[in-house]
């Protein structure tokens, strides 16, 4: 049974001039780790705010744990945990005081659900007397997660929890989410980092308020329609300009030390044709191989279609 449902949700701002969400429909199952992947301004935060009952949708219908986000907002508020995009703790309270405060607000005690947060809390316990404002990015994020979990929510909403956090803390954070999943908590998480997509059970790619694709990461990758090639030569910038002018090029863009290239129509000879073309243009040390698309490649491909 789906734990979160969205049915043709739309939202506009500034008196209908700014479309934030455009006819979004998808479902998240109980106990699933669902990732909402998209850049800043894609509509992720609006979507979170609608599901957490903080905003009213203009059109459409959505439920969380069977409750309507508009009519039954009070019931929803008791059973969800929410970590907003901006740092949402009391900067001048200590780690311990923050946790106690949120426990009180959610009508529970720290002790009651300590099991759930123990693994995370142990990491920040050495700093429990420190004020939240003086914690590093990774620590703040762990504390915020503890505060969001303190009342053992059914559904957890995490809005860009890893933004501005370094790679090590990011990885640890995802490990925490994986272990929370074992407690049968449904998790909806948003991120602008494409590489985090593969850590989710299912993902939704979102851009400019539109859902480009909803599927498992594997299926999203499989759905990439063309063969993708990695290509490099001595002068990368010139290579990019030249390939853009090649008549059979569908998409070509930088990706790491290689460029990624796809063809409009591909036959057995397409690779040779490109190499010949590039040699004519005076390129040296041309290296070309087939490669597997990443989520980022899929995203760019979906943007083009």
């Amino acid at each position, binding site marked *: 049974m789906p734990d979160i449902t969205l049915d043709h949700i739309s939202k506009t701002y500034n008196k209908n001039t700014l479309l934030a969400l455009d006819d979004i429909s998808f479902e998240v199952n109980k106990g699933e780790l669902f990732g909402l992947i998209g850049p800043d301004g894609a509509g992720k935060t609006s979507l979170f705010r609608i599901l957490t009952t903080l905003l009213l949708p203009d059109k459409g219908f959505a439920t969380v744990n069977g409750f309507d986000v508009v009519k039954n907002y009070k019931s929803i508020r008791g059973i969800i945990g929410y970590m907003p995009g901006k740092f949402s703790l009391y900067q001048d309270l200590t780690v311990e005081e923050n946790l106690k405060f949120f426990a009180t607000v959610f009508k529970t005690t720290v002790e009651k659900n300590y099991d759930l947060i123990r693994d995370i809390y142990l990491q920040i316990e050495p700093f429990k007397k420190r004020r939240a404002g003086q914690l590093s990015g990774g620590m703040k994020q762990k504390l915020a997660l503890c505060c969001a979990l303190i009342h053992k929510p059914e559904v957890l909403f995490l809005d860009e929890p890893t933004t501005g956090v370094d790679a090590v803390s990011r990885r640890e954070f995802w490990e925490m989410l994986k272990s929370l999943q074992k407690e049968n908590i449904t998790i909806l998480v948003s991120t602008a980092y494409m590489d985090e997509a593969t850590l989710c059970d299912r993902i939704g790619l979102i851009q400019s308020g539109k859902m480009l694709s909803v599927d498992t990461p594997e299926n999203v990758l499989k759905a990439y329609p063309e063969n993708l090639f990695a290509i490099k030569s001595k002068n990368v910038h010139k290579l990019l300009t030249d390939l853009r002018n090649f008549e059979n090029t569908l998409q070509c863009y930088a990706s790491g*030390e290689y460029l990624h290239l796809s063809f409009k129509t591909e036959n057995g000879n397409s690779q040779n044709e490109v190499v010949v073309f590039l040699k004519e243009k005076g390129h040296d040390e041309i290296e070309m191989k087939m490669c597997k698309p990443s989520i980022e490649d899929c995203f760019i491909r979906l943007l083009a279609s």
Partner: protein
Amino acid sequence: MKETVIKTENLTKRFGDFVAVDAISFEVYKGEIFGFLGANGAGKTTAMRMLSGLSKPTSGKAIVAGLDVFTQPEEIKKNIGYMSQRFSLYEDLTVIENIKFFGGIYGLSDKQIKQKSEELIEQLQFQNEIKKLVHDIPLGWKQKLALSVAILHEPKVVFLDEPTGGVDPATRKQFWEMIYQTADKGITVFVTTHYLDEAEYCNRISIMVDGRIDALGTPRELKEKFSATSMDEVFYKLARGAKRSDN
């Protein structure tokens, strides 16, 4: 023989007992894209400030664009460009006003500014946006404009501090194309980023841990050295041992 644009020897910065940057030595060459990575608090920002003449080192040596950071910080500022995540642009000025303002700051003549801004508008295809407030143009465009403005005076080096935060992948790619183009003109690009996959776009990268440079080389060299498949893994292996990255 490659021309060296940045050269440091045992460059150190202390704040009291705290060693923010601990005797780092490296060279960056002309036209190179040099990635400068590290966890939060590893000392990236402090190092970058010293190299751009904003902060005086405690000890060591550093030459930027042929100038000494100890004795010629003011001249260095004229010979470098700088762009940060928060865009060094004025949100309540129009596109063209920003270009003119920064041209003036870097001491270009009116004639040069006029010529440069025409080139720039043409190249970015901003013809319809020149009268718009920077506040009203999309994030990706702001980033491109900010970079263009930072290299308006044709500096030898441009420092980019987390330039690609928060934009969609397609816009990010376009921004990297601009970086390639800048490097192609012979301007050295010194860039910090949080996106480790972006590190692979750089010619060479250095990774800072606890104020020291723990790894330096081409992305391929580093991946081989740490037997990793991605820069993310290299970084993780290095930064995991960090003492002060996260407390």
